[in-house]
């Protein structure tokens, strides 16, 4: 299961939003990947997410697999939109 977002925050996903995203998914059991520029990293890894260096305007795909994948993706969507990081696409 997956969802895609367009990042609109002017600084992209730097430390603070990365921290928010990673901490929002760690409670879930499902495996979750963040795909950007054909590169996939574990969304539960703060290092992995920050190393992607996702800039404003980027389109990212979040792909989850596991028993609570739907809840996880809803949570991610909530964080991205509420924190003004990006929009659904």
């Amino acid at each position, binding site marked *: 299961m997956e969802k895609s977002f367009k990042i609109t925050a002017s*600084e992209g996903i*730097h430390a603070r939003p990365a*921290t928010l995203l990673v901490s929002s998914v760690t409670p879930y059991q499902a495996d979750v990947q963040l795909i950007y520029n054909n590169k996939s990293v574990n969304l539960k890894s703060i290092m992995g997410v920050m190393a992607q260096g996702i800039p404003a305007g980027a389109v990212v795909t979040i792909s989850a697999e596991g028993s609570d994948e739907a809840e996880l993706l809803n949570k991610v969507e909530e964080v991205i939109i509420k924190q003004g990081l990006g929009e659904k696409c």
Partner: protein
Amino acid sequence: MLEIKGVAASNGIALANAYCLVEPDLSFEKIEITNIEAELDRLQAAISKTKLELEDIRDSAMLKFGEERAAIFSAHLLILEDPEIFSALEAKINEKVNAEFALDEIAGMYAQMFESMENEYMKERAADIRDVSKRLLAHLLHIELPDYSRISSEVIIVAEDLTPSITAQLDKQYVKGFVTDIGGKTSHSAILARAMEIPAIVGTKEATKTISHGSPIIIDGLDGKVVVHPTDEIYKSYRLLEKKQTEEKELLKKYIKLPSMSADGHTVEIAGNIGKPEDVDAVLENGGEGVGLFRTEFLYMDRDELPSEEEQFNAYKMVLAKMEGRPAVVRTLDIGGDKELPYLNLPPEMNPFLGYRAIRLCLEQTEIFRTQLRALLRASVYGNLKIMFPMIATLDEFKAAKALLLEEKQKLVDEQVAVSEQIEIGMMVEIPSAAVIADLFAQEADFLSIGTNDLIQYTLAADRMNERVSYLYQPYHPAVLRLIKMVIDAAHNNGKWVGMCGEMAGDEIAVPILLGLGLDEFSMSSSSILKTRSLLSKLSKEKLAEQVKHVLMLKTSSEVEQYVKNLQN
């Protein structure tokens, strides 16, 4: 018992145990292991301990300093629990190396990866990785890291040097004083110690090497010495002295409500210097009649990005509102020199004090400057705002800065935003060129404020951070005194007021001279306000005006010092 000499940077006496902020030795050997399972368990145990420690630090930072500082530790927790890093560590340990070695390799690899990134901001994340890995390594080695944010009993901090960000995290309730290896009277740790009203001895060169963590020590901020492991007798005599000082402080309290008036009835303004809006409380508690210097750069420091207009507006509004109509002089951004902002990505310079800083930067990066000016103008309706520009060297700079201010004001007026019509626009006189042509500046500016810390270092060409030339940092040097006289006379000849916001304004030798020269406003650390007001009440302005003529003819700094001391006796 042992005595260590240093520079007394902030008055007072403190008795407490030493708290050493020394980097402990975290060296280890690479070992070939046989039991992989046991090694992984050891790593897991260290991670659990580190996690508890970080959670503890995060929670106490949240309580004491708010969410912004606590967020750093939340990020550290995520790094610690990063599944990718953990698998990498696991894989490394599976190659039969000890956990310490595996950690060093993996953390080093990640840190390097971030360091090699283009983005400056990402580069700095390498420091977070190193910080977390250091904490974890200490747990693996069973070594306790000193942690200043968790201090919960009375201590005296002993460190090589204190950065503004470290001092900002110290809890005033428990920190009784500072001892540092490097630094002088005007280094940041010294200024902050005075702002916190605690004694400090700086420039001891060897304190961190000679004082061990937990030793009982005494700092004598009058004599500039640290006593380590005092004898009972010495300890008792210092306790007595400490008591006497507390009593003196009590006596000074009667000056809180009294006007700043000389014995012959001449009044001046005694104001306080602040770095953060909350410092206003100390100014008011000590009976300050205004804020003579708000160092706004502190709003820009210890963060990842520029403060927004709204954030600044709130800070300025808070200061102005708390001052309830008393004057508040705000200095626009003075960054550069020893005060860096990593996120501005400024290239390092050979001579930062003579380089791209303060108004020079603001006049080029006008967006940064305009944001600050707008925030100030919007806040102006909440009190008695005066704005001054730092590091002005030429008349053109002053005119350009003032033009930008007036432009922003017009824009706000056009947008129908309320702006005060009474804002005075002045400047710092801290570069000798500005002091020499103060008469020309006084025609353009509403007021002048003499910044002595820089004026002295530029006049004597002596870096105030360099201990080897600190003997040249001479506030009573005849050249400095004559420049000050020129500035005061120039302002008065043009009907303008003149203040001083350097450390000199609260100095007991300088105050009689400055009063004699006719200085209107004395701005200093809040802790010096009452002592200065008490001193002032014993001086005669009329007599000093005569005596100062003689002072200005003296040949050396020490002659001046001696002469003024004799006057008082």
